[in-house]
């Protein structure tokens, strides 16, 4: 991809917004206009996050700044056959496809939606029934609550065109997983898109959402996603995400999750694609007894940079969170893990546990970890752990002593290391798919330097 003459700056996005302002979906809605104007103003004020912003201490946006991006136009034509299916029985579950951030109706099997489930695209929803969206889209105030102000989330609000809208009505259980495929299809020019997803589970509802982010072709594109999730009383959301974007892609995703009393959020992120990626997840355990599981794995090589940033706020009594992230880093890749658990004053008798483990497989790989605890309540149990190292020599020796060649032994150990985060995934058929994804990654190992 030839690098464009004009690199990306905060101003170039502001200019893009200026040009698109009146054609963005919902341009006629005063509340949305206000929200977008607020978003772009916040973004213009904060700019692209640099080294002085603590939450971005270890992640530079240089790959983004080097390239000039244009807003993605109407969805490029994508051949249906090219889309890999992640879940084994596609066609039975629900499948929604977005290309460059825009819903491709024709690929989505929306026909047989069960009763009480509203599944569709944001642009459509803004056209036909925008009012219920007002409260949901404005819920996270363009990232104003976050300590770094989330400039890219504010940009997302300003520029959002489409995305997933899912609402599950009271007491409804969606038995089959909803698979959402986000395709990045780079054209002749590097494109940028800002999908915005909304998921609302009403009291007692249950659903499983599987996000699959893939790239077609090797070109650069910038996917700047935002997701607002609200889980009402006693509802349960299982949310699994596989980030396998194209090799030159830049993938930024900001997710806000809010839980009411006794609600459950079970999140998982597998991050293996993209040149530069950042997953920022902010969970608010706002209702008494709510629970959050947030797990993930990452596999990096080449010059990949992967940033996982999570903040979990315990706001109500008897809330609990469990977080495990594991990753392997090869070649010159760099991983960043920043996890913060905050237990607020009223959140007595809460539990928070966090674990981050990383394996460095090469002499030039790097990991930066910053696990944080902030505790303001005294009757709590919180812990975090972080480890960094190479594979266990004794374990390696054990396998080699049994006649397994070193490379295979290493693969076995890496697979076992990562498998721990995957084994708890409840969605049927997803575990084997993820395991084979790990196997595939291991098979593609290049240029590993042996000790």
């Amino acid at each position, binding site marked *: 991809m030839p690098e464009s003459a004009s690199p990306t700056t905060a101003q170039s996005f502001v200019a893009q917004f200026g040009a698109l302002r009146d054609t963005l979906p919902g341009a006629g809605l005063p509340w949305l206009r206000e929200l977008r104007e607020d978003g772009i103003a916040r973004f213009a004020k904060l700019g692209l996050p640099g080294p002085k912003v603590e939450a971005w201490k270890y992640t530079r946006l240089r790959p983004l700044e080097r390239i000039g991006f244009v807003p993605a136009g109407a969805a490029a034509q994508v051949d249906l056959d090219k889309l890999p299916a992640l879940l084994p029985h596609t066609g039975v579950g629900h499948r929604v496809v977005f290309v460059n951030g825009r819903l491709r109706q024709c690929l989505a099997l929306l026909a047989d939606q069960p009763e009480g489930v509203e599944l569709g695209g944001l642009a459509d929803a803004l056209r036909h029934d925008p009012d219920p969206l007002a409260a949901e889209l404005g819920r996270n105030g363009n990232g104003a609550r976050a300590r770094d102000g989330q400039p890219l989330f504010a940009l997302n609000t300003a520029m959002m065109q489409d995305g997933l809208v899912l609402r599950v009505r009271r007491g409804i259980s969606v038995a089959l997983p909803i698979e959402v495929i986000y395709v990045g299809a780079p054209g002749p020019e590097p494109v940028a898109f800002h999908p915005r997803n909304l998921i609302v589970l009403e009291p007692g509802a249950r659903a499983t959402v599987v996000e699959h982010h893939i790239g077609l072709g090797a070109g650069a594109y910038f996917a700047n996603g935002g997701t607002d999730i609200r889980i009402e009383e006693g509802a349960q959301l299982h949310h699994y995400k596989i980030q396998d974007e194209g090799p030159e892609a830049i993938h930024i995703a900001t997710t806000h999750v809010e839980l009411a009393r006794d609600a459950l959020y079970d999140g998982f992120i597998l991050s293996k694609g993209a040149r530069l990626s950042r997953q920022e997840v902010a969970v608010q355990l706002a209702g008494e007894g709510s629970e959050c599981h947030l797990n993930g794995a990452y596999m990096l090589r080449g010059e990949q940079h992967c940033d996982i940033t999570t903040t979990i706020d315990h706001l109500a009594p008897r809330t609990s969170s469990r977080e495990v992230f594991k990753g392997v880093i090869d070649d010159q890749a760099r991983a960043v893990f920043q996890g913060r658990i905050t237990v607020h004053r009223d959140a007595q008798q809460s539990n928070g546990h966090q674990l981050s483990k990383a394996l*460095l497989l090469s002499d030039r790989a790097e990991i930066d970890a910053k696990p944080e605890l902030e505790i303001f309540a005294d009757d709590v149990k919180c812990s975090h*752990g972080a480890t960094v*190292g190479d594979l266990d020599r004794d374990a390696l020796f054990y396998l080699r002593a049994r006649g397994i060649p070193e490379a295979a032994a290493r693969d076995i150990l890496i697979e076992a290391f990562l498998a721990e985060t995957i084994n708890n995934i409840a969605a049927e058929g997803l575990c084997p798919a993820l395991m084979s994804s790990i196997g595939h990654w291991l098979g593609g190992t290049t240029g590993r330097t042996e000790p």
Partner: protein
Amino acid sequence: MAASIETTQQVQEMGERTYKYGFVTEIETETAPKGLSEDIVRFISAKKEEPAWLLEWRLKAYRRWLEMPEPKWANVTFPPIDYQDSYYYSAPKTMDGPNSLDEIDPELLRTYEKLGIPLKEQEILAGVTGVAVDAVFDSVSVATTFKGKLEEQGVIFCPISEAIREHPELVRKYLGSVVPPGDNKHACLNSAVFTDGSFVYIPKGVRCPMELSTYFRINAANTGQFERTLLIADAGSYVSYLEGCTAPMRDENQLHAAVVELIALDDAEIKYSTVQNWYPGDKNGKGGIYNFVTKRGACRGRNSKISWTQVETGSAITWKYPSCILQGDNSVGEFYSVAITNNYQQADTGTKMIHIGKNTRSRIVSKGISAGHAQQTYRGLVKISAKAEGARNHTQCDSLLIGDRCGAHTVPYIESKNRSAIVEHEATTSKISEDQLFYCRQRGLSEEDAVALVVNGFCREVLQQLPMEFAVEAQKLVSISLEGSVG
């Protein structure tokens, strides 16, 4: 755990009484004019009869300081410091270097006696060895004991102003080599206006025959204390150094910005222990010392070792990160810390372990106890550079919260660029378990005693690193600091 009514009353009654070092010594002092300017820097330098290079060094630091921003990243809040509303030099009159202990103002001797610091060269405690003490009173060192005995072994232990005169080659070589003047705003200010502090040099192969100790006392009002400690352990030597500090109770905040530099050469070992008990302010958070300290040790030589142990109970605000730069292969850095904050105290403390040499090892054990309205933060960095083959770090930091108006924060940074390095970090936060308390109470201990027992057990791993003389004091401090806050 909710405090009982009795306990709450007790806390109120105790208020300021718990700080027993809060008295003021009435003594005539000589002070520099209030405020900070190049003239003050020149005044201090002239007062100390310093060579031109040092004055130049100070002035350079001062000019740099003017441009440096205040560090804002720590989790502490306080109104902006008015640097012009303070004295930068204050010394007891007639204190131009007494030649022997007999010449010291008896009022000063009484002060130190009251503080429990022996300035007489006596064989204290039941121990075989004594402790050599350098006593720093406001801006000057007033006495150094056992100098003669130490000199027999070639150990230099004297005020730094004396070292500048007597051993300029050593001072010039090492001063600012671990903490350069531009390191941070507080260290920069210290470089410009440091007045005294201790200088220690342990020659090759010498195991220092006794514990060395410096006792810092702020006495004068509106005075900042800016001491500078430089400790060099030459190849194959060993030294254990203790540091203690107190100040009177005053309603204004006083600034204490010290710099400590340690240098360990091949096979040398330095053990540096601190019991920090500056006046913490009253129960409403009024007054107290701002303790903004830069402490850093460089393990320059192979197989060298630097071990920091600190018990932090005082100061209104603590901002302190004793660190180790592990340059030499196989060098070892250790950091053991107990920090206790009560009432409205704030502490942001921790360590940095920078692994550069091969097979370097570091160990961090940090225990934080927060009570009342206090906020406490552990902030640490473990950095493994690409060349640090086989480096190893283990970090453990535990926090204990007493009451629901305080906070505990853990902010560790881990950066690793070497695959063969192993870094492990674990942290927990909890309250004292009901089971533990129940067990103790069942055996007839009162609730307060039970809590004290559990807390002491919680801190034990760190306290046992302290030299014996300090361990006893530290244990007492731990219980005093928490007295009345639990129940």
